[in-house]
């Protein structure tokens, strides 16, 4: 008997030592190496990982409003599409103009950057009035009005009254080749686009993290906890929600810009409610109360979908798996995968390890949640 406890203790000690070694710097270094190695991986894996990064940013932006401010939007696809269409229109209509101005060599790069900025500007321009109207409502009514705005965008893109969006077909996005004297590359090449996405997503994630940990973000959390208490302390709740809405939409817009380049098309489906739902599902699976929740959720979402797609007989039913997964998470795993991981870590190592990677969660006793399937680390 004593031998077992001895071994147990030793394992625990070892685990604690390893956990102590995982400082933020090491994580950062390891992450950087991982990201670089990834660039030499098989082409499809690069595509899948890039896809994950884009969806992660999409969900992260969505969660600023949901997990941090307490407003469930069902229409963030509108801003995803906004970013995508912004860059798509610029690339389609203005690339020849840029070619005339700056020369054909750099024109694709200039068009891409300008397109990104235009996409982002477009999203903010849409989010300002849409947010202003939406934050007048709360809870389910907020979810419904954002859903309505999303579907309004869907109809407008399909009807195409201004002749800009090319209806149901969407706009083909051609990123083109850059030629700078000796150096030439294709922006849309898997590896190039992967590196570009990593840079943008990391920067946007850091920006979001700063927002969340700023005075602004602190007030967001207070509003999530109790809007009327926040108001009684002098906080203009509606205005604050509006500002959060705009920032959240802008982050989603950046993801939308990246999505257009990755998918090589800006299609109306991006603003369909089923796309908005991806952000919701990824966030709920990952854990809305953690900063890293949406990222881990997006990882699980995309990689499980990929795993399923390897079995052609199952592929037609992939949504069924997510339905089941979602039911499981909602019923037994209220803190999502990240909550489960932290719980598992605490269980394995005792309470010694410090708070990782995110903000707080409700540490209300989630005692009986099992920790199978959560062994996938958030090393991404």
């Amino acid at each position: 008997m004593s031998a077992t406890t001895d071994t147990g203790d030793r394992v625990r000690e070892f685990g604690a030592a390893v956990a102590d070694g995982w400082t933020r710097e090491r994580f950062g270094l390891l992450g950087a190496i991982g990201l670089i190695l990834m660039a030499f991986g098989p082409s499809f894996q690069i595509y899948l990982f890039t896809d994950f990064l884009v969806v992660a940013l999409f969900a992260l932006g969505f969660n600023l409003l949901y997990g941090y401010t307490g407003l469930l939007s069902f229409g963030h696809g509108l801003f995803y599409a906004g970013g995508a269409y912004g860059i798509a229109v610029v690339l389609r209509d203005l690339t020849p103009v840029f070619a005339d101005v700056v020369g054909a060599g750099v024109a694709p790069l200039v068009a891409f950057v300008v397109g990104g900025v235009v996409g982002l500007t477009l999203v903010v321009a849409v989010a300002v009035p849409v947010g202003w109207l939406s934050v007048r409502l709360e809870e389910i009514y907020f979810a419904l009005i954002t859903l309505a705005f999303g579907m309004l965008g869907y109809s407008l893109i399909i009807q195409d009254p201004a002749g800009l969006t090319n209806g149901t077909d969407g706009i083909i996005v051609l990123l083109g080749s850059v030629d700078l004297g000796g150096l030439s590359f294709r922006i849309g090449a898997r590896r190039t686009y992967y590196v570009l996405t990593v840079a943008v997503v990391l920067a946007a994630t850091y920006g979001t993290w700063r927002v969340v940990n700023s005075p602004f973000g602190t007030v967001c959390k207070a509003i999530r906890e109790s809007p009327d208490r926040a108001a009684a302390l002098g906080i203009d709740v509606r205005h604050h929600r509006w500002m959060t809405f705009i920032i959240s939409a802008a982050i989603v817009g950046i993801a939308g810009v990246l999505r257009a380049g990755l998918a090589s098309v800006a299609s109306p489906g991006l603003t369909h409610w089923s796309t908005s739902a991806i952000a919701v599902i990824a966030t709920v699976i990952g854990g809305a109360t953690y900063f890293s929740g949406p990222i881990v959720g997006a990882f699980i979402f995309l990689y499980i979908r990929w795993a399923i797609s390897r079995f052609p007989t199952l592929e037609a039913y992939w949504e069924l798996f997510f339905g089941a997964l979602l039911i499981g998470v909602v019923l037994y795993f209220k803190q999502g995968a990240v909550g489960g991981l932290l719980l598992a870590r605490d269980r394995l190592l005792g309470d010694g390890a410090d708070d990782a990677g995110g903000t707080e969660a409700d540490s209300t006793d989630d005692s009986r949640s099992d920790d199978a399937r959560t062994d996938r680390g958030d090393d991404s």
Partner: protein
Amino acid sequence: MTTVLKTEDLRKQFGELTAVDGVSIEVDDSEITSIIGPNGAGKTTFYNLLTGVLQPTAGSIWLRSGDAAVVGDGDAAGGDGRAGGDGGLRDITDAEPHEVAQAGLSRSYQITNIFEGLTVRENVRVARISHEKTRLDFRSRATGDEALEADIEELLELTGLTDIADTKCDTLSHGEKRTVEIALALAIEPNVFLMDEPTAGMNPTEVTEIVSLIRELDADLDATFVVTEHNMDVVTDISDRIVVLAEGAILADGTPEDVLTDDRVTEAYLGSDSV
């Protein structure tokens, strides 16, 4: 002797029901005023009118405001403010809750209303951020302002919450949560502090503690305390003045001795059939 809060013929009608029926009251900064009354007397509605949660059907509300920059509809404050003859009072009748709070009126809630998912320190930090008007600052770190952190520390010490500062509020005891409630309301440095049943749901020990805390705070701070309370021992203990509401109107108003020996008050509380 300065009036810090004043209502004039304040009225609130819910359909047929008159919840607050022409209440005129002046609160002085030198005293702790208690507002008492049987259930349904209109105390909570009265508080909700004062704090801008409800809009009055008629009447007006005036607040002495240290901060001239804020307050509801500027026009109302401008014209009528001077017409009232009392230079320092501002009309907050039409102000929204956050404007009322910015103008210097803070409140605590009968049913504990704090940021449960945050720690005690974070709770107070939110209030200080609001007070310092840095809520839209998304570039700096929330914990990076040393002056702000010092203010938070001071307030935690004042309210005796230092030991549990980094505990999440949903794990606190009821009494501790009630104290956080008070700390939050004080953090915005109000001129007037409306306490809605500070001892609600507390055990006798906690009641004693909170009463001595209120006493201390009243002595230490500039804020004027207005308290509603069901616990009569607490009322007589802390009040300099008691206002009795019954059926939405003021039934009695005076020192504790005068009011509690008033036959009409006894009748309102116990019914005419009782002793």
